[in-house]
């Protein structure tokens, strides 16, 4: 890994106007909702909001117009995403479809798949989940064992996915499955686009330690999907997933998930905070500013058609650390009862409980550091 070159973040068009339009739109259309739902808001499901956002042209922005997209530049989309996250808008329903499934279908999918799925995604009506992890394949993703065998009628799928965020409200799953019999590790894998109402699929909730139902177990019992469910090249699933993960790891959600807590801290501290609180706010602001520069630079590199795998991992690693650190440091300095009803206390409690997942989802800290180490030329 050479020295870090900051890629200039330079979206086309009038960025200030884009922000202003979206802020005005949010002022009218963002549900007031609960303050806690504004933190970690990319896990907040609100189908009405997603539909309205799609109708306003803020979903599927980079997809071609002929599929209902906006034909916008990826960095314009980045601006919109960071605004939505900073505002704490409930973007959870369409989040995965917009962030990675749509772009992946656009890049690797067939014409038929694009026509079938992209318009619904862009409208904020078609939701997607990612079928990667399995009981025996977590950090070791190449251990995937769910199989799909090609038959005369189509693909027959057997196996199980787990920790599948949003499977219970999603319409489709983009699954990594083993299509080549006898294949091992990262060879012989393919991506299938599976309609989740296909017979033979069972979805069971897993309740997380915060009491939320975000992730699920998904069972495939002799599930038959058409030949046309294959996305991209047969046997190229590993390479396609790796590209997908680059989209997943570097976005502004890696440092803006806890923004609502920072806002609440600043507001609670007032215009003239005591020195210790001011110092904490200063340190958090410096970290957030730095992370934003790293994330924008990574987005710019991605938009330039380059592979920012290592940079994306740096953003995720530092972003996760920042967001796990913030509630702990706020709790250490602010007097606030565990069960207090005020905003700061409730956000603090919610994020303390949610934050262990930050360095698990989208690749564990240890895996991410391994990717960075490889980028440094070690091992």
């Amino acid at each position: 890994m050479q020295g870090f070159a900051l890629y200039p973040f330079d979206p086309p068009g009038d960025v200030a106007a884009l922000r202003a339009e979206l802020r005005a739109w949010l002022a009218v259309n963002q549900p007031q909702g609960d303050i806690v739902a504004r933190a970690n808001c990319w896990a907040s499901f609100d189908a009405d909001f997603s539909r309205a956002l799609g109708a306003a042209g803020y979903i599927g922005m980079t997809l071609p117009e002929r599929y209902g997209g906006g034909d916008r530049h990826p960095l314009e989309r980045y601006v919109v995403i960071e605004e939505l996250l900073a505002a704490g808008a409930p973007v959870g329903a369409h989040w995965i479809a917009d962030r990675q499934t749509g772009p992946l279908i656009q890049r690797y999918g067939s014409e038929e798949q694009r026509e079938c799925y992209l318009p619904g995604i862009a409208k904020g009506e078609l939701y997607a989940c990612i079928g990667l992890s399995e009981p025996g394949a977590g950090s070791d993703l190449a251990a995937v064992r769910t199989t799909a065998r090609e038959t005369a009628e189509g693909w027959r799928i057997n196996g199980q996915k787990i920790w599948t965020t949003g499977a219970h409200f999603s319409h489709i799953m983009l699954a990594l499955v083993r299509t080549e019999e006898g294949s091992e590790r990262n060879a012989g894998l393919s991506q299938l686009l599976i309609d989740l109402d296909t017979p033979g699929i069972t979805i069971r909730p897993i309740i997380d330690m915060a009491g939320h139902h975000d992730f699920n177990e998904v069972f495939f019992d002799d599930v038959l999907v058409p030949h046309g469910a294959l996305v991209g090249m047969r046997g190229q699933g590993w390479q396609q997933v790796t590209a997908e993960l680059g989209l997943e790891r570097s976005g502004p959600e890696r440092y803006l998930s806890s923004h609502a807590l920072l806002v609440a801290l600043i507001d609670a501290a007032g215009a003239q905070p005591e020195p210790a609180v001011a110092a904490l706010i200063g340190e958090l602001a410096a970290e957030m500013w730095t992370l934003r520069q790293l994330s924008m630079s990574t987005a710019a590199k991605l938009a330039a058609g380059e592979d920012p795998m290592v940079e994306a991992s740096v953003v995720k690693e530092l972003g996760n650390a920042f967001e796990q650190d913030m509630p702990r440091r706020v709790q250490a300095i602010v007097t606030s009862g565990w069960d207090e009803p005020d905003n700061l206390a409730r956000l603090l409690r919610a994020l303390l409980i949610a934050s262990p997942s930050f360095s698990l989802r989208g690749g564990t800290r240890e895996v991410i550091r391994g990717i960075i180490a490889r980028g440094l030329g070690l091992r």
Partner: protein
Amino acid sequence: MSAAREMLCDTARAVFAEAATAGMGPIAEAGFALLLVPEDEGGFGGDWGDVNAVLQIAGAMVPDLPVAELIVSEALQPAATVSLMAGAMGQALALSIEHVNTRQQFGRPLGKFQAVQQSLAVMACEVRAVEAAAAALATRLDAVGLDPAAADFEIAAAKLRANRAVGVVTAIAHQVHGAIGFTREYDLNRVTIPLMRWRGAHGNDAYWALILGRQVAEFGGEGLWEALTAR
């Protein structure tokens, strides 16, 4: 990087290599004092992007020489120090990678051990963060004509972030080097000792955290995001 800046960097590397033993003489002779002086006044007409590039090389190669003082006014010394720190951290990382890929223990290079890999990944993240902070600060300073008052948020944030990286970077660099890194002869201390010094120079953590925290408090909770995105 522009061709002009590439050439500037090549010159800096050559001159600083000489200056490492000869002192400030070659640097003064090469005209680095004129880096920020406009071309129509007989200078190089460089911007802060150029200063950042040159000072990162200085931070790696001649951290004990007053190169920043030669090029930059007093008001911009905190910003200059961020660039020096980024350069020194990059050098500490490069030395560490080189060492763990070469030094063998238990029959293999240290870099094969996951514990070492994970440590160096943590260190690399800190170095990248400081490099990004230095680059973003340069972008801001160039956008506001090098007016430190107009880049007050960025100077505070970048110097604070760089300060906070020093502990992790120096600790991991020395840890993975083992005893050889603790000798006077080996090159690592030539960048780690300056890093320790720069953390306290031109504003330590507490100094900048308080300034930045008070500025952000005046923005208010919602105002922080508006201010960040308006700059």
